């Protein structure tokens, strides 16, 4: 067994007991990245020197015996997290050489807890995509089959954990961007409730939907990472001032007597039979453990994709206005005045999908269309949230597939944006509703690709999700499987 095969909580224990050092772990992580990333392309920036330096400091701290929770553990961040002094590109040409002057809140918390940041991860440009093919840095490949996509937009965050380059990573989830790649790569990914983790210092895609969350090899490790970054932040007006529970305390509480809902609208035609079979198996496991599984209805589900793509693009069109070549990032100036500078900078700096969404969103907000599109979508959003809140009156959590199919082949859907958008069909409702959701591995398709299932929880009930997921995980081996790269 190699050091990189250790899970996050095993690393934490061994570091504390002096069995391993952070320098050794970090070097092993960097070596693993060097060995595998030519095939995977999970990293945009590797922070070799900074990581080794942080690892040395961590070892010193560990020797003193007062080290905080994550001291010495190598982790990696989606390149959407603003990192002081370290290039933050969002996988876009327009930020190709942007070096921020500050750390975001989640990054600051990780650093304060002693984590060693080994690098910045590949993603869909500005988190817009479901396959990680929309990256100026090239696509990330699925560690289980390099001809398949890893999912997106946090493709690098999922692939790096699956490939054991790092034990855990942070991603962001706007419509499934943590859960869907976690599912495709066979790892655990958690999207917390909107407002649970600060968005300060996270490049905004769609501000009312974006949420930071962890990806790791198992439920416990996800809980550890969530514990590290969760909490109210005065710098983010939308973060919520509600106490953060101890996510590990009730982890082993089991599911006996709990009620799990299956939304009938999620088990419809278009769902891959292998995925359906795997999720059916999960249901049987829960029943066997003493949970009651009942049908629930989320009647407005069919409007979710349209609603999402209006709200997300509208917000994105405004959020991305600041990339204008004036103050930071790349500038293309043909020397013919301001308008041409704007046009050239944005035409050449943004990729096609980003431009498509800016145009969609601009249209949805235009005077004369605002009421019919943006405002209507906001109303539908409220209905979708109410669907969930009503369902949670009946059940403790909701169980669904994560994606309609296992990871598809690179290039499969790039020509058909609508098909690509539909791959988020089971995940984006959670963002519209603002609730929490988690993706866990639960099977393997015939061709060996991982399949995941999703648990959706009440607002701020992340601890319930973790407990429910952990109970299942204890009965399975899926999360321990290791891809051959």
């Amino acid at each position, binding site marked *: 067994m190699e050091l990189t095969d250790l899970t996050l909580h095993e690393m934490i224990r061994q570091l504390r007991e002096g069995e391993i050092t952070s320098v050794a772990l970090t070097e092993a992580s960097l070596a693993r990245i060097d060995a595998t990333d030519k095939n995977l392309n999970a990293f945009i920036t590797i922070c070799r020197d900074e990581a080794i330096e942080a690892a040395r400091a961590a070892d010193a701290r560990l020797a003193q015996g007062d080290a905080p929770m994550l001291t010495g553990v190598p982790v990696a961040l989606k390149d959407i997290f603003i990192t002081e002094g370290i290039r933050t590109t969002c996988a876009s040409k327009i930020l190709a050489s942007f070096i921020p002057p500050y750390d975001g809140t989640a990054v600051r918390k990780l650093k304060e807890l002693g984590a060693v940041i080994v690098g910045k991860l590949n993603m869909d440009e500005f988190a817009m995509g479901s396959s990680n093919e929309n990256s100026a840095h090239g696509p990330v490949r699925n560690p289980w089959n390099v001809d398949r996509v890893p999912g997106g937009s946090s493709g690098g965050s999922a692939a790096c954990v699956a490939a054991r380059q790092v034990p855990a990573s942070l991603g962001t989830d706007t419509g499934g961007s943590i859960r869907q790649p976690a599912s495709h790569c066979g790892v655990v990914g958690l999207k917390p409730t909107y407002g649970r983790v600060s968005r300060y210092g996270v490049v905004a895609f769609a*501000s009312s939907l974006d949420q930071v969350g962890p990806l790791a090899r198992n439920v416990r490790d996800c809980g550890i990472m969530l514990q590290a970054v969760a909490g109210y932040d005065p710098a*983010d007006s939308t973060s919520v001032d509600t106490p953060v529970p101890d996510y590990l305390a009730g982890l082993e509480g089991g599911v006996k007597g709990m009620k799990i809902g299956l939304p009938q609208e999620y088990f419809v035609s278009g769902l891959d039979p292998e995925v359906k079979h795997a999720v059916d198996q999960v249901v049987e496991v829960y029943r066997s453990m003493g949970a009651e599984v009942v049908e629930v209805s989320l009647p407005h589900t069919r409007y979710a994709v349209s609603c999402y793509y209006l709200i997300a693009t509208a917000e994105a069109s405004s959020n991305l*206005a600041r990339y204008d070549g004036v103050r930071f990032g790349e500038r293309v100036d043909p020397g013919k005045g*301001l308008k041409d500078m704007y046009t050239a900078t944005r035409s050449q700096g943004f990729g096609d999908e980003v431009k498509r969404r800016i145009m969609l969103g601009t249209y949805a*907000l235009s005077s004369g269309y605002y009421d019919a599109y943006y405002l209507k979508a906001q109303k539908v959003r409220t209905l979708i949230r109410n669907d969930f809140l009503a369902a949670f009156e009946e059940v403790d959590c909701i169980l669904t597939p994560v994606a309609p199919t296992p990871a598809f082949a690179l290039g499969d859907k790039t020509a058909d944006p609508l098909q690509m958008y539909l791959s988020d069909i089971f995940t984006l409702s959670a963002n519209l509703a603002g609730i929490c959701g988690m993706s866990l591995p639960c099977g393997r398709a015939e061709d060996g690709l991982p399949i995941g299932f999703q648990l959706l929880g009440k607002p701020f009930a992340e601890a319930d999700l973790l407990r429910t997921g952990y109970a299942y995980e204890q009965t399975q081996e899926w999360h321990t499987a290791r891809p051959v790269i």
Partner: protein
Amino acid sequence: MSDTLRDKYEVVIGLEVHVQLTTQTKIFCGCSTEYGSSPNSHTCPVCLGLPGALPVLNRQVVENAIKAGLATNCNIAPRSIFARKNYFYPDLPKGYQISQFELPICEHGYLDIETEGRGKQRIGITRIHMEEDAGKLLHSDEAGVGSLVDLNRACTPLLEVVSEPDMRSSDEAIAYLKQLHQIVRYLDICNGNLEEGSFRCDANVSVRPYGQKEFGTRAELKNINSFRFIKEGIEYEVERQIELIEDGDKVVQETRLFDSDSGTTRSMRGKEEAHDYRYFPDPDLVPLVIKDDWITQVRGTMPELPQEKMQRFISDFELPGSVAEVLTAERNFAEYFEACTRLHKDARTCANWVMGDIQRMLNESGIDIEQIPVTPQMLCGILERIADNTISGKIGKQVFDLMWESSKSADAIIEERGLKQVTDTGAIEAMVDEVIAANPAQAQEFREGKDKLQGFFVGQVMKASRGKANPAMVNELLCKKLRS
């Protein structure tokens, strides 16, 4: 333009005023709002619009907006929303301005004004909303430098006060503006400096033939930085529009810049280039909820407003309206006067001194009343000594001038300079005798009925006493002696 032609048309004016708030820090970040610092020295990730930065609303800005709303008779919205106004410009770091659109913080207010033309009028205030200011562009003549951006002003707090189109003359517009200006100065939420742009006015001006119901097409005047220019700009615009209509042309809806050198306006951009700002609620800021107890608390911190103060001065101190108006023009000035009335019971005398000598010296020395060397206590020291006949009014003026120079008390100056009034009957009698003896011819004329000479004798006695003789006693003794 002939008066008859002008009189055919009714003028319609609505005003949008941007009030820059004097908070210590910016509206959405902790940077200083200090004016005149080196470019980009008061900036951070938030006001630079860096990726990932998020706005956090400054509570003081909300309180200032509530004050402005209460002072202009607005409803304070229990729930208001910040919106993004999207447009590209290099001085706008995020590519949108955070403002309020639907659901502003204040609505449905008014100010009552009075002018010679239509007398008392109520001018409606449609709304007051909070927003952030943009940065400044500096255009360099140097080759290769181009334009530079200073973002110190970016994200500084503004209130936009939008009136109804209720004004019918430039005089009414100025009366409204001056009252609004006076209110924000009283509330101490804006320094009121028009030239520096702390109080900026855009005027929507249109004309229509009297009797016509529909408004005429309006032009929006920008870039006017004094009350005088606002009046000139409106006057020019009214005549320009009337001439266009009389010539059979149409007024175009557009923005026009006022040029203070020529006193004219010129077109800035036409309607065809009008922006679609794509307003939508800012998802980075939660709805602003204002509960009644917050409003009550803010109301408790508000000073008496100029109109109320003026009315109170009229009734409490029995002052004429015109006097009360001058005294209440500036809050500090009014407070100075009122401090005097608490120390000296004759309010009219206080008013005369404050509007007379105090105002004169402030003007001459060019200082604000905050820095005045003569405190109300010191001034009233003089007034008390006049009232108790220690000195005459004339000597009082002399004491005042010395006081301004030295900051010494009235008693100290009177003592030091020996200015105490002579009230010793014997001493005055001696001087009167001396003067009558020295001017026998005039004394004779007086006795023969030339009453006017009384003044001459008073003057001579006062001169002999170097101003210190009590004038009333001088008069009395003179009468007695001359008639005897």
